[in-house]
């Protein structure tokens, strides 16, 4: 399957969605996005961190240093209440957009 580039502005939503399962570090988030899209979405890992730090500044996520499974220090991100709300709003918006685009591309 060909890799596709991420639509602009959707990375935040994917990150929020991923964090819904619980706190995760940057690498974990990248791996999770790749895995849950069956490797179709190729997220350049380098672009994760600016997004994470920006979202943290916006208050959508929190960060905390914890020990990973293999006993290494890692920064774990988790959703805040504000982040949960933003995720809900993003999902609604996304769904409406997909529907609308689908209607245009496949007229009944």
């Amino acid at each position, binding site marked *: 399957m060909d890799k596709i580039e991420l639509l602009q502005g959707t990375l935040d939503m994917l990150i929020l969605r991923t964090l819904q399962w619980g706190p995760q570090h*940057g690498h974990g988030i990248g*791996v999770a996005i790749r895995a849950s899209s069956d490797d179709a979405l190729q997220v350049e890992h380098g672009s994760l961190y600016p997004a*994470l*730090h920006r979202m943290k500044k916006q208050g959508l996520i929190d960060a905390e240093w914890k020990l990973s499974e293999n006993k*290494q220090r*890692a920064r774990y991100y988790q959703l805040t209440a504000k982040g949960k709300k933003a995720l809900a709003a993003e999902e609604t918006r996304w769904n409406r957009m997909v529907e609308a685009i689908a209607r245009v591309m496949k007229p009944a």
Partner: protein
Amino acid sequence: MPFWDRRKENRELDEELRFHLEQEAQLRRDRGESADAARLNARRDFGNLTRAAEVTRQMWGWSAWERGVQDLRFALRMMRKNLAFTGLALVALTLGIGATTAIFSVVNSVLLRPLPFPEPDRLMTIWENPPKSTHNNLVQSGNLLAWRERNRSFVDIAAMFPMGINVEGQGDAVQVAGLRVTGSFFPLLGVRPLIGRTIRAEDAAPGAPPVVVLSYGFWQRRFGGHADVLGQKIPVATESTEVIGVMPPDFAFPTLPRTALFVPLKIDPVQALRDGRNYSTVARLRPGVALGAARAEMHAMALQLGIERPNMDAKWDATVIPLLEKTVGETRTTLLVLLGAVFFVLLIACANVANLLLMRNSARRREMTVRMALGAGRWRLLHQLAIESLLLSVTGGALGFLLALWGVPALVSMLPAEFPLPRMSEIRIDPGVLAFTFLISLACGLFFGIFPAMQVNRGQVSDGLRQGGRGGSIANRAVRHTLVIAEIALALLLVVGAGLMLRSFLLLHSVDPGFRTDHLLTFRMVLTTPLTTLEQVTALRAQRVRQMLEKVRALPDVSAASTIHIPPMTGGNSGTDYHRLDRPAPQAGQGTGGAVSVISDDYFRTMGIPVLAGREFDAHDRAGAPKVMILNQAAADYFYPGENPLGKRMKVSWGPPPDEMEIVGVAGNIRHDSLDTKPDPCIFLAHAQQPSGFQTLLVRTRGNPQNVIAEVRDQIRAVSPSQGIQEIATMENLIGDSIARPKLEVAILGLFGFIALLLACVGIYAVISYSVEQRTREMGIRLALGASPGSVLQMVLREGVLLAAAGIVVGVGASLLLTKYLATLLYSIRPTDPLVYASVSAVLAIAAIAGCLFPARRATRVDPAMVLREE
């Protein structure tokens, strides 16, 4: 995020990214990749590591504080790079703010700060107004007593009588400024003594033992500040007087700040009805009584007293003036004019700095547009410009404050001791003024910062880049030109003000007072005579003066000597009613009369005043001989127009009862009160016939007057060992002190005018330089096409001359409008004096052209080849 957390944050980001890469490599090794391949692939997969870290860091954003520090460091670097600009701007700001603070400190201390008494705004002074006059006259004793009894407006009224008081000692008798006060004086002011008690009503009762309250200064000088002075008896005005109290150091009656002694003022109710008008007053309004109501009541009482005692009070009125207003007095106009002037200096300084900033920022347009093109936000640029100008103005403010800190004491110490500036001891820079200064400098900074920044922002980025930094919009240029025109106009206004004051002062200074002022010494004193009967006292006064004159005239360095009871050039004179004996006596309240001087023989020769007709007083005019008088020219013209007054007789109300006197001489007019008072009718009485306790010994010396002082003082002591001397001064000093105020006005306004002129020069210089710089290319082309350097010079000068002309026209207009407020300060010239206007305009035009000349000459030296190659 605070900047000190930034390093930790950086470390944490590194750790986070390293963890990511290790994690990815681990994942890949688990899938079976070799260790090296795993690491490389992890890196490739990640993308540009440095760029990612950089972008991430940007996400943290910058705190306002951190941006501030960054901008501040940049601003400091810019200041250091642009030393000429920084220097000029700082000089302008320092002068503007420093001068403003200094003058404002003085104005604040003198005019605005309340008097140092409880509820000071209720302290009033009461005055009588002579018939058909608004002159504030001293108060008649009987009226004072009637007012105290009848009024409903005041808590109390106190009377004061300032006089020199002799304090004897062992060969060190002194005379100091004393104040006789009624018992109500201290309670009414609400002041408490430092030690002991103050004067009470009982102290002023008939037969009460004599007491005295010392000022802090006199206590320190004379008694070394020893507390055991209380209860001591000291010889005050020939009486053994008990010291009952000492006032605190900060106490001074505002209109008589140098008073050293306070003694009870005894008013005998019977004698009071016949007394003259002698007393100043201070009164405290009852709570809730308005000034207007008190004035109305005083007016009504004066009317009633005029009916009750027509001989004394017919047609006299009375009025109330707040003590602060009276204290500030004529100084008010001077200080307000200075305040206005210093405000204009500040405006010029501001315009100058604004112009400099405007030009520099225009020159930095390229830098700004490049930064903008690289993505700097408009706010960020605005912020940086604001910081730069704030730094400039705060530095200027601090320097200005230092200048004021140094300038205020310098200003005060410049004043002569007798300078009539009230509340001088209260002058200091207070926190309010400090705040005022910094507020001004901050406001300036914000204005300068925001305004030029707006200019930059409005410009289009692409335009800025295309123009290669040589831009400068038309609007920008209009603003600069307006500013420089305003500067020239304001400078002209100030210099016109200074010019008017200078011309007025020179005129005043060159006034002929009517007598010879050089080599003339004055010894002012109150004759000390043991209190016995009036006849004995007058006889003793006459004898003392005769003996002093005999001894002093015998000195080899003395060419002439005489006395007068109130010397010329000390701001006042005595006056009384007198009229021709061969005419009916004028009605009560319609008295004719004028000034009176009581003099000794040889007075006119000593003073160098011509005797126009008849003779001077001589040794034959003594007590018992026929009473004689001399008129000045003005009195002769007034009373005997077209007649010969010699041998005629007048009735003079001087010592009670009124005397008939024969006119034996007419003398030339002199200016008595001060240089700017026109000679009024004045009569001269012979001291030997009308002895006065107030004496000023006048001594004309052959050599340097300073060398004669000690000898004369010894002769006075030889006649009366207990006689102190209040003041010794040369006549030239007295005249100098009498014109100290206009002199100070000229000095300060002159200084301000000079500063304004300099700043205006710098302003026009900067504008023209900038314009020449902008047009370098045009000049190069012109020169290349064969224009002569002369024509280029002319072209640049034309721009400057047009600016200067516009400034001068506006300035002359403004001066014509504003200098009318100077009218009361000017002597014998009008505020529209054409000579001053013409010469000041010429000076300004020359200064403006001088300002253009350097940049214009630079324009002619442009090398066309260089300029054209540059493009």
